[in-house]
């Protein structure tokens, strides 16, 4: 079988697995949030609401696709696609098991971070294309929030890279078989904390979700979308969210290392990713949203210097460790 066919099949398989995970993650979040608010959550469609995501998808596909007449039509129609592509691409370099992964590039994490920053283009196109004041305001807010949080996101993701010395994701995962990086004395916990905070902000989840702040901007940049386009944007957002939690699980929680036989690896990896996702959801359902200017000051004045400092100390610690040992 020619190499490109193998890669295509692997990509097809991973894409479908990811789509299933992403749809069922929405149900997991709704049930988890419901229980946290002492209510039941979706239980009508299928046993205990298990078919709810499929029902949502079918509903959105069948919904009428309304395009505002004053919209900038090409930009408006292209925006969901441009938003979805990077969110799916980030799963390319994630190895789900030692050999199991679409493309295990030696610059894996660099590819991941570069592509995940691309989604802002699609987002701004959506905001601009729908020619709606609320969408424009929210797109403007999105640009400066995601840009300002990408830097801390990258720096905190680089800490494990320093600890293993390689950009390849499978190397990072392998290096953690002994000690998970989150348990690395001080640096591990801090790096994980900054990583989670900047994922929250890069995904514009509460308390940083000024993007689609219902109380002010109704639904943010998605306000003019309906039907399939809305489903695509929603899918992209959740895919990006799941991608980041997979990355978090890989970088800090030792992707597939866990008790039990070898083939249990991917299951452990999935459980850890879901734990990171639930941690983010837990934060999401406990806090109030803060204002735009406060978010930016938090990023530039607190998070950025902190992550830079952390990166420097890890470098110093590593140099001291290696020189001390040899």
């Amino acid at each position, binding site marked *: 079988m020619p190499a490109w066919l193998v890669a295509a099949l692997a990509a097809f398989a991973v894409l479908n697995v990811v789509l299933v995970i992403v749809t069922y993650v929405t149900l997991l979040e709704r049930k988890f949030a419901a229980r*946290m608010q002492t*209510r039941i959550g979706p239980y009508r469609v299928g046993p205990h609401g298990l078919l709810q995501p499929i029902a949502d998808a079918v509903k959105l596909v069948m919904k009428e696709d309304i395009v505002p007449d004053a919209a900038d039509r090409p930009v408006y129609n292209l925006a969901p696609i441009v938003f979805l592509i990077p969110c799916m691409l980030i799963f390319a370099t994630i190895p789900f098991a030692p050999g199991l992964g679409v493309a295990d590039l030696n610059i894996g994490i660099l590819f991941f971070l570069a592509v995940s920053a691309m989604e802002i283009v699609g987002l701004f196109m959506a905001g601009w294309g729908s020619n709606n004041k609320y969408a424009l305001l929210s797109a403007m807010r999105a640009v400066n929030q995601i840009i300002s949080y990408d830097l801390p996101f990258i720096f905190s993701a680089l800490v494990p890279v320093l600890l293993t010395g390689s950009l390849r994701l499978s190397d990072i995962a392998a290096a953690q078989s002994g000690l998970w990086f989150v348990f690395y004395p001080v640096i591990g916990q801090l790096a994980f904390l900054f990583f989670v905070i900047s994922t929250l902000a890069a995904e514009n989840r509460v308390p940083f979700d000024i993007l689609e702040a219902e109380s002010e901007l109704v639904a943010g940049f998605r306000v003019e979308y309906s039907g399939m386009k809305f489903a695509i944007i929603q899918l992209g957002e959740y895919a990006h969210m799941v991608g980041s939690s997979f990355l978090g699980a890989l970088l800090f929680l030792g992707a597939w290392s866990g008790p039990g036989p070898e083939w249990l690896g991917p299951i452990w990896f999935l459980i850890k990713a879901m734990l990171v996702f639930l941690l983010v959801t837990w934060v999401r359902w*406990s806090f109030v949203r803060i204002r735009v200017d406060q978010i930016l000051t938090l990023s530039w004045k607190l998070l950025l210097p902190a992550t830079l400092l952390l990166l420097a100390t890890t470098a110093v610690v590593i140099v001291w460790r290696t020189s001390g040992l040899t």
Partner: protein
Amino acid sequence: MASPESLTTIVMAVLRAMRVTFLNLFRKPVTVHYPDVERKYPNRFRGLLALTYDQETGEENCIGCRLCEYVCPPAVIKVEMLKAEKRNYAKTFTLELYACEFCELCVQVCPTDAIIMMKSFDLATTDRREMLLDKDRLHAIGLQHQPSWATGNRLRDAQTPPKGAPRPHPPQEPPAAKPAPSPTGASA
């Protein structure tokens, strides 16, 4: 920008907030599966309006005196009296449910406990004309659902002073002549 001790208070506050939501994770949900689980009504529930029959004689209670028509704030009740030898009857009795405010003044003013409210609140109908209840619809509703405790006499008796009142019997337990239809007994 945050001094050390305010940093600790911030972190403590964040953890405390998250602890509250975490603890609520294990509380029993308060919502019920509505259509399958029927909600329990309190005794004095003000629901759908209905006309009643007398327990013994099986006759209509309503004597068409139009007191309810005069007292109704949104003027939704229309009654025409039918004169007869021993007692009068209501020829027609219409009630526009879409403007009714469920304030229970008509029940309070009715001398013969003819109009009472039922323990049911599913008033939705597909056709607006069904909201214009006429006499037989009101009687039919009276037989379908459970009546609420509040009837004209009980409401008025509850307001009169219990002790030393010239009333022949204290209002607490229901007057012997009219056994209370409500299952839980009059717990006035």
